[in-house]
C-alpha cells in the first residue's frame, strides 16, 4: 500500500514521526524551566495574563531584590557548604566502610552488612521524630548539624557504602597486595591504592550525594528556623508576602538562580550524572 515510498523514505518518515512524538512528550519536561526563567525577568504585573515567553520589559532588578528580601546570598552559601561537607564526609566514611566490607575478613561481617541493608528499607520519616529529640538533646536545633549528620549516616550514606563495596569487589586484588608487600599499612593501601583506582565510583557517590543534600527539604524544614540558616529549597518557598501569598516574580527569579547552575553542570556532565543515578538504582 505504500509502494510509492522507497524503504529508505519509509524509514525516514518513521523516524520523523518518532521525533515528533518524543518532542511533544518533552514539552512538560522542558517548558517549566523556560517559563521559570522568563517569568523571573517579568514584573509582578506582567506575571499573569501575558502568555509571552519573552518579557515585555526585562526586570533585572528582580534578581537584586531577591537578595534584599531575605538573606539569599547567605542561604545560597549554606546550601553550598552543607552539600560539599556532606559529600566529602560521605566519600570518606562510605569508602572506608565499603572497603572493609569488600576486602577485610572479620567475624560478623555478613551480620554487619545485613544490619546496614535493613536501614535502606526504613524511610527517613519513620525515625525523624526521635532524631528530632536526639538533636535537641545535643543542642543542635536551629543549626546545620542535623542537615550534615542525618544524610551522612542515614540511608543515603548506606547506599553510598554499598556502591563503594561493589566497586572495590570488582577491582583486582593484586595491586593492593603489592602495596602491602611494599610496606603500606592497611590505611595506606586504602588511600594510595584502592581509592585512586575507584575514581568512577567516588564520582558517582559524590554526584548523587551532593544532589541529595542540595535538594533536601524535610530536614531543613524541621530543624532550622532562622532565616539566615535556611538552605535553598526552604528559602525558595519563603518568598511570600506577610499573608503567605507567593511573590511570584521574586520566587521564580530565586528559583532560577538555584536551578540554573545545577542544570548547566548537568548539561555538561549529563552522561556521567545519569550513569551515577543508574548505578545507585535504588533511590527514589
Amino acid at each position, binding site marked *: 500500500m505504500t509502494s510509492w515510498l522507497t524503504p529508505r523514505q519509509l524509514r525516514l518518515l518513521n523516524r520523523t514521526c518518532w521525533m515528533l512524538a518524543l518532542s511533544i512528550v518533552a514539552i512538560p519536561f522542558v517548558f517549566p*524551566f523556560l517559563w521559570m526563567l522568563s517569568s523571573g525577568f517579568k514584573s509582578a504585573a506582567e506575571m499573569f495574563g501575558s502568555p509571552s515567553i519573552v518579557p515585555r520589559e526585562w526586570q533585572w532588578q528582580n534578581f537584586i531584590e531577591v537578595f534584599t528580601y531575605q538573606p539569599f546570598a547567605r542561604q545560597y552559601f549554606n546550601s553550598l557548604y552543607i552539600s560539599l561537607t556532606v559529600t566529602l564526609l560521605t566519600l570518606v566514611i562510605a569508602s572506608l566502610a565499603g572497603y572493609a*566490607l569488600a576486602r577485610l575478613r572479620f567475624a560478623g561481617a555478613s551480620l554487619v552488612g545485613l544490619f546496614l541493608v535493613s536501614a535502606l528499607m526504613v524511610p527517613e520519616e519513620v525515625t525523624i521524630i526521635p532524631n528530632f529529640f536526639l538533636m535537641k538533646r545535643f543542642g543542635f536545633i536551629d543549626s546545620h548539624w542535623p542537615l550534615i549528620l542525618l544524610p551522612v549516616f542515614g540511608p543515603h550514606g548506606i547506599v553510598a557504602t554499598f556502591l563503594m563495596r561493589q566497586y572495590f569487589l570488582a577491582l583486582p586484588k593484586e595491586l593492593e597486595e603489592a602495596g602491602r608487600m611494599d610496606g603500606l599499612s592497611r590505611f595506606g593501601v586504602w588511600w594510595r591504592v584502592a581509592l585512586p583506582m575507584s575514581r568512577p565510583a567516588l564520582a558517582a557517590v559524590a554526584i548523587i550525594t551532593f544532589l541529595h543534600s542540595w535538594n533536601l527539604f524535610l530536614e531543613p524544614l524541621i530543624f532550622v528556623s532562622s532565616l539566615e540558616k535556611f538552605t535553598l529549597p526552604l528559602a525558595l518557598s519563603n518568598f511570600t508576602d506577610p499573608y503567605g501569598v507567593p511573590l511570584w516574580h521574586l520566587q521564580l527569579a530565586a528559583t532560577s538562580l538555584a536551578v540554573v547552575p545545577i542544570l548547566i553542570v548537568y548539561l555538561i556532565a549529563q552522561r556521567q550524572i545519569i550513569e551515577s543515578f543508574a548505578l545507585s538504582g535504588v533511590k527514589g
Partner: protein
Amino acid sequence: MEGKPATSPKSGPTARDDRAPWLTLKMREAMEAWLFISPTIAGFLIFFAGPLIAVIGYSLTEWNLLSQQVTYVGLANYRDALFANADFWHVARNSAIFALGLVPLNMMLALMLALGLSRRFPGVIIFRTVFFAPVVTSAAAWAIVWKFLLQGEAGFVNQMLAGIGIAGPNWLRDPDWAMVAVILTRVIKMVGLNMILYIAALQAIPRDYEAAARLEGASDWQIFRAITWPLLGPTTLVIMVITTIGSFKVFDHIYLMTGGGPENGTLVLAFYIYEQGFKFFNVGYASALAMIMFAIVMALTVVQLLLRRKDT
C-alpha cells in the same frame, strides 16, 4: 620447619605481625576492619537503630509536647489511628490513590520512553537528557514552578487550554483536581529515573534474540510480548517496589504545591506524620503513624523478595 627460611609473614593462620607481635594477622585484620567501619556503625546505632527503637517506645505513649507529660497508653495510638480516627483512613485513602495513580503512569511512561530511547539515533542523547533533567532538579523548585503554571484562570496551563476552547479547572484549589495535578507533576519529575533503569535493562538484552525472532517473521509487538517484556521482569519488579515505596514517602512535593489541601484532599501519610508530630506535637500518635508507615514499606519489600524468589 628446620632448614627452611622463615615463613613469609603473610602465610599461615598463626603468622604474627612484626609491628604488634602479640596479635595474629587474622586478629589484626579484624581490628582494622572494625576501625574502618566504626564511623558507619556508630552513625547507624545513633541515628538509625536507636531512633527506630525509640519510635516504637514513643508510639506506646501519650506525649504532648506542650504539657510535657508522658503517659504509657499501650496500643491506644494504634487503636486511635486504625479504628477511632476518621482522619487516618482519609489519609490512607489519599496515599493509596496517589500510589495507584502514580506508579502505573510512571512505569508505563518510563517503559515507553525507554523503548524509544534505548537505541542509538541522532538526537537520542538530547531526549534522554531532557527527560532526566527534572530528576536532578530539587522537588522544591519543581513544585514552585508547577504551582505557578497551574494557577487558576490566569495560570499558563489554563490559558493554553482556553486557547483551544477548554475551561481548565482551578487545579490546586479544586479537591477533585488537586490530586490529579500533584500526581501528574510528580510523574514528570521522577519518570526519568525509571526510564534510565529500563534503558539499562533493555541494553542488557542480547540483540541476537530479536534478530532471530525477526528472521522467524515476528512482529514488533510479538517480540515485545514474547521476548522483551519477560526479560524485563526482574527490572519491572524492582522499579515497581521502589516507585511504590517512594510514592508513600512523598512529602516536599505536596507540602509546596497544595499544603495537603484543598479540604485535605492531598493529605498523604508522610505529610500527616509531619503535621501530627511537628505542627500539633502529638508525639505518641505521630510515632504510631510512623510505625504504620514502616509496616507498609516492610510489607512491600517482603512482597518484592518473595516475588523475586519465585522468579528465579
